[in-house]
């Protein structure tokens, strides 16, 4: 498994460098722009895309086939992608939350409730794409999975823009820490379910 993770780190360092630039630019914009959550959300979204991006390179390089000849189980091959997604997703998430805190402080309206609400929304939206898409990609391959991913990002962006245009605010009905905790628990459970489902799909897939 260590070998697989190392390979994913090499791949991310090579192919996902532009993502870092995008993260910096978007977070910078979020400081100067209005309260649009999109600029905070986008870095988390593209980081969650890392596993799918890597899998597309794997297919192109024929690593998908080669890795099936190496002494790894299908479960390990799936888990390495989920883990790498979690590591970089978590990094982007922490940076985005930190940026939000700084912005709130700078603008002088820091509120723990808003921050927690925002943190849960970010987590939900960041985890949504990999949770839904990775099982599909492990079942059908990256081509169809990526198309679905781009469509989803487009729809979310459009939805966000329309909602903002209609004057809607992104906020959870903050009814207390327990509700937020429940939401987080559901998100985590869905992610675990997605991971298990991907393993089942990939074990059955003929390479």
């Amino acid at each position: 498994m260590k070998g697989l993770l190392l390979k994913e780190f090499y791949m991310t360092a090579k192919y996902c460098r532009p993502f870092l630039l995008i993260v910096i630019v978007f977070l910078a914009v979020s400081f100067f722009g209005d309260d649009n959550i999109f600029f905070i959300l986008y870095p988390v979204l593209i980081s969650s895309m890392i596993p799918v991006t890597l899998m597309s390179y794997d297919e192109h390089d024929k690593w998908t086939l080669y890795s099936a000849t190496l002494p790894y189980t299908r479960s390990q091959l799936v888990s390495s992608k989920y883990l790498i997604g979690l590591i970089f997703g978590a990094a982007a998430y922490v940076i985005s939350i930190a940026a939000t805190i700084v912005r709130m402080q700078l603008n002088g309206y820091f509120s723990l409730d808003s921050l927690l609400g925002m943190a849960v929304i970010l987590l939900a939206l960041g985890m949504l794409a990999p949770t839904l898409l990775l099982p599909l990609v492990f079942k059908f391959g990256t081509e169809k999975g990526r198309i679905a991913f781009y469509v989803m990002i487009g729809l979310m962006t459009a939805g966000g823009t329309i909602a903002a245009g209609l004057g809607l605010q992104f906020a959870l009905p903050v009814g207390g820490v327990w509700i937020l905790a429940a939401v987080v628990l559901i998100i985590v459970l869905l992610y675990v379910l997605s991971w298990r489902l991907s393993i089942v799909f990939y074990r059955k897939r003929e390479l």
Partner: protein
Amino acid sequence: MNALEIRNLTKTYPGFRLQNLNLTLPSGCILGLVGENGAGKSTTIKLILDMIRKDSGTITLFGQDNQKNTVLTKQDIGVVLDEVGIPQFMTAGQIANIMRHTFKNWDDALFKDYLKKLALPADKAFKDFSRGMKMKMGIAVALAHHPKLLILDEATSGLDPVVRDEVVEMFGEFTRDENHAVLISSHIVSDLEKICDYIAFLHQGQLLLCEEKDVLLEEYGLVQCSKEQLEELDADAIKGKKVSPYGVQALVKRDAVPAGFPVSPVSMEELFIFMVKERA
């Protein structure tokens, strides 16, 4: 012990069926799997490596079912696929770092030896290699963890004669150890003729024959004669024929041909072509 045993292996795809395949690869030997494109060579290799599911039959590797303890078994197998599969930007050093954490018996010194021996630059990206160099890198990786079985799918296709010779020599060296075995597939029969102890012919998903190469060369021969002369021969002796206005060329079983009838040696390629055409 046999490194590989396949019994009654069947796999069906839409429009293709690998039927009741039986193969045995004893340790210390090289088995060449010959067949035209689409004959079922890659399907067989994928089934051995448990990359696809069989319909029926059994596959044993080192005496163990290939679907049991797969990870442990694969520690002893080196694989080179026709497109190798190493990520394009990686250098030899990065590949070694990954494989060191993948194979228990990974040997850095041995890998460096192979790089040197095969004139592979350590700092060049895999994508900048020629096809021959890519294959050589695949072979170096496959050998550097001290495998007992090497499986090569079309690994010699497209190599220039000099590289092919180097590679062939390496496989010969590898099987000098009696615990080692090689399964190599190719649609280029002449690639395998030189190196294999056993030859298996696959055609449209069916095994035409699997035999020791020397036995095949002893058993079969070519006769060049007229139609009338050929008719004098026992029909069972004739395993294939090519008729032209200048006469007949036929593949025959030597022991069924009367003494004194001129029989010349047959190459593996001719043997394969005659057998395939006879079935057509």
